[in-house]
């Protein structure tokens, strides 16, 4: 798997969303985990919580910083990656796989249009360098 898989959609805050039917899986990017350094704690919402596009849905804490997590899409949380409670390092080791964070039932798939493709995200990283 490359640094920025083609099938994902990306935010300017370095989260990714992967559409799986009516649902979307959400996590943070390779770039984000690299910038954060060792992740020591992830605080996620409970199943049933509502999230809104580009609103904070949780917090990721590394040895260097604490950062808000922003929802790429609006919807209801239907699943939470509970294994991150015990093993937050999965976010570093496998950000697009075992390090996923939440699964939401999308409220408005049109919101996907506001997200970047892999190529756009890589371009964004080159130009803005993130922050």
């Amino acid at each position: 798997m490359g640094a920025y898989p083609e099938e994902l959609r990306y935010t300017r805050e370095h989260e990714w969303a992967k559409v799986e039917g009516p649902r979307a899986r959400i996590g943070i990017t390779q770039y984000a985990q690299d910038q954060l350094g060792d992740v020591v704690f992830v605080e996620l919402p409970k199943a049933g919580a509502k999230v809104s596009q580009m609103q904070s849905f949780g917090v990721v804490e590394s040895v260097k910083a604490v950062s808000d997590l922003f929802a790429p899409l609006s919807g209801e949380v239907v699943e939470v990656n509970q294994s991150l409670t015990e093993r937050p390092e999965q976010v570093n080791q496998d950000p697009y796989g075992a390090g996923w964070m939440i699964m939401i039932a999308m409220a408005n798939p049109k919101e996907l249009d506001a997200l970047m493709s892999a190529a756009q995200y890589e371009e964004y990283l080159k130009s803005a360098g993130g922050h």
Partner: protein
Amino acid sequence: MRHGDTMRYIGTTPAQRAEMLRTIGVADVEALLERIPSKARLGRDLAVSPALAETELVSHLGALAARNAHADGHVCFMGGGAYDHYVPSVTNHLLLRSEFFTAYTPYQPEASQGTLRTIYEYQTMICELTGMDVTNASVYDGGSALAEAALMAHGVTEREQIVVSGALSPLARRVVAAYCAGPRLPIKVVPWRDGVTDLDALAKTVSAKTAGVLVQYPNFFGALEDLDGAAAIAHKHGALLVVAVDPIALGLLRPPGEAGADIVVGEGQGLGNHLAYGGPYLGLFSCRKELIRRMPGRLVGATVDREGRRGFVLTLQTREQHIRREKATSNICTNVALVALGATIYLSLMGKEGLRKVASLSTAKAHYAAQVLSRVPGVAPRFGAPFFKEFVLKLPKSPDRVLRALRKQKILGGVALGAYDRELRDCVLVAVTERRTRAEIDAYAEALAAVVA
């Protein structure tokens, strides 16, 4: 302020003042005040008596201080949250050492390994007493600890309602109400029955809306609550059980952690710190490990340096407001290090055996006092519930008047309860610590008999 700088608390000279006025181009100080309407100005000098010489000042202040009634000049049966336990003299000797005599965690805390170590030891001992996994470096007092626990229960459960036992200190309940006013958390008070929380009423009150259930152990009336019962009710609905303790009692009683408490708080004054009007006192705060990210306050952790040597650091600071800003778990960003150190010295000195002895002596003497005082005609125990070192007596005459008469005989007979609960307006709360002697207790009974006759 850099090292080597000197801060001089010395007033300005007339020459310096003249220079400052010249610099800003003003004729005199009066000119700076002319914008203030004259009707808002005093128009004369303050009526302050002339300065006293140091010798005069010391005797004047001494005379004022002597007008205070204090526990050392009286026989003290007052409690209700602060207690006249004995403070071993070694406590003050160590506390007043200049290395310790600062109430602050230094701003570069890791430079002060000794201070951090004493806090770490304090946290460890309080964990052992409460039966919890983690204890913070302390908060201001028992009341603010309880209020922080209510906010934490709200943070953990994302629910709003706080359920409080009516047998919990009314003063601590006021602090909880003050803290809950800002975030608008509704508070429900559950009544007491025969001196303990009415668990039937509690079961009816707690619901899926409840964030935390707050009880006291022993409670405000000195009685022992059924913590397991309260825990079962709270947990059935997914609420947290918060228990406010008297740490001295934990020398004898089962730790609340074993009864299912999620957060344990308490007033730690009785652990090696003197009674003082207005404090500073000591807020104990412990919780289960799973809740640590929502815990308020400073936390000292043990670690090793690059050479493998043991050291101490402030840890999990991402909960705190200097990092998390408005999303911090609390706005507390300090602790009462010196008072906590007093408790640490006290607990080290007492050890398990010593603390158990203080607790059992207090209980035995309190039970003796309850017996003897209840033999006074017209005086009777108000409740039947088992108690630790404090109990409620029903008096045949106005408690306020009785207590005033006792005070004239240098006996602080207890706390009149009418101001807190109308139903108990004929009652007084009596506390007995290990310091009280049989002779003092008998003398109290004799004096009480004469006063109520």
